[in-house]
């Protein structure tokens, strides 16, 4: 029975998943209400398209979902990793932008193989993540402020480097974007191992596997290594970490650097798969992929493995939203529904409390009288 199962696993694992699922379900229901409000006749049809997501248009849709998911996993990991150290990496978008520059420059100008380009993307992102980390650690400047400023500095700098008054050597005058990777430097495209044929797409590559591997590595770093132990200690209680002789300044910088590297890889996976090209004139808004990492991390409660599924889900309904019949619905409806779910993500912790209460309420009747003297002392338990 349930009682036999380890209590710790039960409370942290199942309740977290349950809480995230509650968010998703409520978000979808609100979405349905919105669809009804706009066009009640076609609401159910539209809703089913959103729910089906990539499955609505087999097999191409699935390929699209996969190619969108890979970078989203990376930015989700980036935010989740920083969260573990008690840092809020709102700079994922800027790090992603710099990662894009690194990938495109090494591919379009230097014609390097894809893995070198991916490393470049990682390094560029890492540098952009390290800067707010250094400011936070050594000058006590809030990382949110620095990261937001570096988002915009990064965006305009990258646009300028690529465009250079239409003379940039990555800029294609005909498309007003960067050159298509497949035409200019095919060796820089991430291999697809036949997945493009399978899904009848152009950009479904092994990026998704790289992202999943990254998530597993991050999971191991956080949970199994002394480095992860130190990072989490800093995140939970900076003073106690210091007392234990942990160099918390170094850990803040490292945490932000790694978070930046993860976002950078995300951009690499996106642009090196050839999902899209960079448009320096239109790109006056920060890439949404960077910001969407935040809700993905929240929905996953900062668990790296959870990030994989949260990113899959967000991509799934985003793609589904693209299949809404435009005659009746604007494709932005999907964005609204995602926004509602994202909004509810902020309540994940609340739902988790509700789930834990419900579970403990049921278990209470069966619980034996525990002979140990634990801290049911009110002042310790209520914090």
């Amino acid at each position: 029975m349930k009682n036999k199962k380890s209590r710790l696993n039960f409370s942290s694992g199942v309740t977290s998943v349950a809480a995230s699922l509650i968010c998703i379900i409520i978000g979808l229901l609100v979405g349905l209400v919105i669809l009804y409000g706009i066009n009640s006749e076609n609401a159910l049809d539209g809703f089913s398209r959103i729910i089906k997501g990539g499955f609505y248009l087999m097999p191409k849709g699935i390929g699209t979902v996969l190619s969108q998911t890979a970078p989203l996993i990376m930015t989700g990991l980036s935010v989740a990793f920083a969260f573990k150290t008690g840092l809020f990496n709102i700079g994922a978008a800027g790090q992603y932008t710099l990662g894009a520059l690194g990938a495109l420059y090494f591919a379009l100008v230097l014609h390097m193989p894809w893995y070198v380009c991916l490393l470049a993307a990682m390094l560029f992102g890492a540098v952009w993540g390290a800067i707010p980390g250094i400011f936070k650690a050594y000058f006590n400047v809030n990382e949110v402020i620095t990261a937001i400023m570096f988002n915009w500095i990064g965006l305009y700098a990258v646009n300028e480097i690529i465009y250079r008054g239409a003379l940039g050597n990555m800029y294609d005058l005909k498309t007003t974007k960067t050159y298509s990777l497949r035409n200019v430097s095919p060796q820089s495209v991430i291999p697809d191992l036949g997945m493009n044929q399978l899904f009848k797409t152009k950009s479904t590559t092994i990026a998704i596997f790289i992202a999943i591997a990254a998530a597993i590595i991050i999971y191991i770093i956080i949970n199994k290594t002394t480095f992860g132990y130190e990072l989490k200690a800093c995140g939970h209680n900076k003073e106690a970490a210091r007392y234990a002789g942990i160099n918390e300044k170094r850990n803040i910088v490292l945490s932000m650097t790694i978070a930046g590297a993860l976002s950078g890889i995300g951009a690499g996976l996106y642009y090196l798969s050839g999902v899209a090209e960079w448009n320096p004139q239109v790109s006056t808004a920060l890439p949404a992929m960077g910001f969407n990492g935040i809700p993905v991390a929240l929905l996953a409660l900062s668990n790296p493995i959870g990030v994989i599924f949260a990113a899959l889900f967000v991509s799934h309904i985003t793609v589904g939203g693209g299949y809404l019949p435009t005659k009746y619905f604007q494709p932005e409806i999907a964005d609204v529904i995602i926004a509602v779910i994202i909004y509810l993500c902020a309540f994940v912790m609340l739902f988790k409390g509700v789930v834990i209460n419900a579970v403990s309420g049921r278990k209470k009747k069966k619980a034996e009288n525990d002979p140990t003297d634990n801290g049911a002392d009110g002042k310790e338990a209520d914090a």
Partner: protein
Amino acid sequence: MGNSEYIIEMLNITKEFPGIKANDNVTLQLKKGEIHALLGENGAGKSTLMSILFGLYQPTSGMIKKNGKEVKINNPNDANALNIGMVHQHFKLVECFSVLDNIILGIEPTKGLFLSKKGAREKVTALSDKYGLKVNPDALVSDITVGMQQRTEILKMLYRDNEILIFDEPTAVLTPQEIDELMKIMKNLANEGKSILFITHKLNEIMAISDRCTILRKGKCIGTVNIKDTTKEELSRMMVGRNVSFKVDKKPANVKETVLKVENMTVPSKVHKNNAVKNVSFEVHRGEIVCIAGIDGNGQTELVHALTGLEKISSGTVWFDGADISKASIRERSKSGMSHIPEDRHKHGLVLDYTLEQNMVLQRYWESDFQKAGFIKQGAVREYAERLIEQYDVRSGQGPVTIARSMSGGNQQKAIIAREIDKNPDLLVAVQPTRGLDVGAIEYIHKQLVAQRDKGKAVLLVSLELDEVMDVSDRILVMYEGELVGELDPEKTTVEELGLYMAGAKRTTA
């Protein structure tokens, strides 16, 4: 209104938390105008019971009666409506508000849209005169002493015309003088017809002012006794379930070579421009317990932080086992054989959201016993934690995987002590290691400190408790306003003399 003898009755209260019964069929009856003590070890369920009375928790079963009539208390507002007030152990005051503003917060008297504090001020002044609660209503809470903050909390209850006053371990944060003051105030309140519930585990205080006492042990009600008819020994036996010795049993010290030598150390203060520690020199030897005594806030915290590396010194030298460690990092000091039981177990001592086993290796997770190539050896950590839990009798709901936050204060402290002593340090720096603990745990911790000394280790104890200073230490250094003003032999001095040094009225060293 009924004409019951009791103003508040909590009958057969049971409260269950997952995995534990915090209160098991507890009955507590409070007479009008009495001071009723609630005594129990850490984790015995005192705070839970009071939280139920104050509406913070709902009992699983049982009934609460006021003046003989059953009442339901679903939240603190209900409690307030029944004239029940509580002074929490950690005060609930807005630091940047004045005393008066804190008192009226929540029930601000208004005229139209505007505050009208005149009436409130008169009422507060009248109350403070009546009960001898000296406070300046216009002082900011952040500027006044802990004792005055507590008086503000008491005034908050009186301003709301509360009849039943709950004091949750009110003396834990006070100096001896402030405790005397509080005792007088509580007597006054009872004489004026207020009924007082007094949560504590300090037997002297119970004997001094209480009329009756209810004893809890492991969530169960052991009994209610009249203080007139009982003794300290009987109370402690009822609380702990066995005989407790109040005297620390120890052989004469066998003092050996110097471990710690501090020369002319000065530490700047973080809160004011003056130095917190001024030109301090002393030595600690193997085989002795040196105690730094003093009233809270005279530089002891900064002194310890400077020794353990948490704060930088501005001048002077610290020698440890013959090496200059003045600029060494916290980790280096820890590695070279210094252990530190910190003053604030929640701020420094534990990562509260970590499990017990993760906290047990907080100072040594990086050692080769617990990690290989950067990967934590989970099995070794578990084994080690289980050994410490067993050896030091650290009690928790789920053993090594218990989240530290959910443990009782006493067991949190035991975990820290287990971790620091098991490091086998040359020097153990223990800052108020028994703060907020019950007699059983205090006895245990004192034994551990003496055992360290007898093993030939050096112990530097920082304490505010005069009894502890006199009983445990081999040598007393008194600290006053950042300076060491005297060195005393506990065998040859008295508590009164020590008090004079602590108050700055007497000094021997230049």
